[in-house]
């Protein structure tokens, strides 16, 4: 690894709270969160600058959460990350939001269920498994909470069906409505432990952590072709005409 450019800049705009983090390996150097509402273009650069301080020259990887999430908000941070990579010629890592959530789990959680609220009583659900315990990674100087692998695809499921994927004790990571968590506990035959809501603290540092711990799983595609995960209804409707009519 290039010593001079060993930092990871991580961005997340897939959650209701956006975040940017700067990491040295697994260590978080800076972490910023903000509420952008619909104005992602407005808040992104200012917060990235604040997270970076003057360390831009030392960034070797730009990691960005690829969703699922709001289409335009995902594209805002991904476009920003691509532009930055185009300028700095850094590595680009696209991390799925569920994978980043899974990396927010404590080191002793074996089975992890990630839930991303999708509105209308639905969640994006994906299960993960921790393959190894906390350890130094070969060729890397930080310690991360093991290696986490997905078990199956990310699915859009109604809140009433959340328990169906459970086959043992599980750690739940994500943003979950308390009522939905209660009914999940009731319906499950297994203990359900719920992790920190990442609303206040931001997901970006776990995007960076996932990129550091397992860059190959995190980044199946390059900056040239990376696209967000479009999991929700297609949003492809009738053409607009005269969009700039005034």
């Amino acid at each position: 690894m290039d010593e001079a450019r060993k930092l990871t800049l991580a961005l997340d705009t897939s959650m209701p709270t956006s975040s940017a983090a700067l990491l040295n390996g697994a260590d978080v150097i800076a972490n910023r969160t903000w509420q952008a509402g619909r104005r992602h273009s407005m808040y992104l650069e200012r917060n990235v600058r604040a997270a970076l301080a003057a360390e831009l020259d030392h960034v070797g990887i730009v990691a960005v959460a690829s969703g699922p999430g709001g289409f335009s908000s995902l594209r805002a941070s991904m476009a920003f990350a691509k532009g930055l990579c185009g300028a700095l010629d850094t590595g680009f890592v696209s991390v799925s939001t569920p994978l980043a959530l899974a990396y927010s789990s404590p080191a002793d959680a074996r089975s992890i269920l990630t839930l991303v609220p999708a509105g209308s009583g639905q969640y994006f659900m994906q299960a993960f498994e921790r393959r190894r315990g906390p350890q130094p990674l070969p060729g890397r100087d930080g310690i991360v909470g093991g290696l986490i692998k997905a078990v199956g695809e990310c699915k859009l499921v109604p809140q009433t069906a959340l328990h169906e994927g459970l086959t043992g004790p599980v750690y739940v990571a994500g943003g979950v409505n308390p009522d939905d968590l209660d009914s999940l506990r009731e319906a499950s035959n297994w203990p359900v432990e719920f992790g920190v809501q990442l609303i206040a603290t931001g997901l970006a540092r776990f995007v960076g952590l996932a990129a550091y711990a397992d860059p190959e799983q995190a980044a199946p595609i390059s900056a040239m072709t990376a696209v967000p995960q479009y999991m929700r209804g297609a949003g492809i409707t009738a053409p607009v005409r005269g969009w700039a009519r005034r």
Partner: protein
Amino acid sequence: MAGALSGSRRSDAFTVILGIETSCDDTSIALLDAYTVRSLVTQSQLADHARYGGIVPEIASRRHIATIAAVHAAALDAAGAGAEEIRCVAVTHGPGLSGALVVGLNFAKGLAMGLGIPLVGVNHLEAHAYATWIGRDPSEHPEFPAVCLIVSGGHSEITLMRDHGDHRLIGRTRDDAAGEAFDKVARVLGLEFPGGPAIERLIDDGRDSHLTPFQLPRAMLEGTYDFSFSGLKTAVYRAKAGKLGPAETRRIFKEGGQTEFERGDASAHARMAAGFQSAVVDVLVAKTAAAAEEFEAKSVIVAGGVAANRLLRQKIRAAVGVPLHLPEIRLCTDNGAMVAMAGAFLLKRGRIASPDLDVDPNLRLASEPVATER
């Protein structure tokens, strides 16, 4: 940004500007060196939208994010330029499709931040006018005040450009944009999207037979520089559906052809296409020429996708008494070069964007306060 250009042959704001345009369906990036296009790479999405008969916003946004990094790399490659030569990034931040603008603007912000160079936010309509500065010697550039006709599938407006950055909207369409009317009529005539070039081809095909165009109504809207194309479009719809009133029928089909048109004969379609095209062009030309006269313009600029229309180019040239400025054909439709050109003038006036610059899908042309340096 002092020192950024050490060794460059110019010290002004004009070299080298990278322009990014994603306001609609083209992902386009150009490198502009003064008034010369070093490279222009445009990834058109037309094929993706054609089957919907128009631009689908979500498809446009998805194509932009999927291709923008490759378009950028290709533009640098084609220019044989390194990132260190770029002095400023210019990007369209409105008007346009919100989701599409988001991609270009944030890519531009990341790029400018990474390169440590300024970013300027460009108004897309203004950029169209600046296409006429490109590839020309400064002695041939438009003189102010200039009346600008900006016509495309998304916009139809007449503006008065009194200086760089000083625009006044003096007329606009009240319904369909001119290019949009071409698209809709092309559809009725069974032609593909986009309608403008398709209609021109149909007319060309019928040219040898010296067909008389049908006589379509021209909405001149007296006392204003606004346009309306919906009545014209509706007349074509109703003619096709056989639903014209007796007076309308007599006027439109004065020289016959009604049965052939309703039946869908190619020659009758060509006559309708020609009639429609001249009606649109007549209105655009009359309004622009009148505006040039009233505002004592020293030049007239015609830009936007419809500025590629040959009949419009011909007729406007004959109608205005002052120098006429038309972009090269390839710079009529949306492109990164015109954004870079507009950006160069913004940079020259020190109008550097703040990190908070947002997209503005409904951005209007602004009149800046008169700059003190002039």
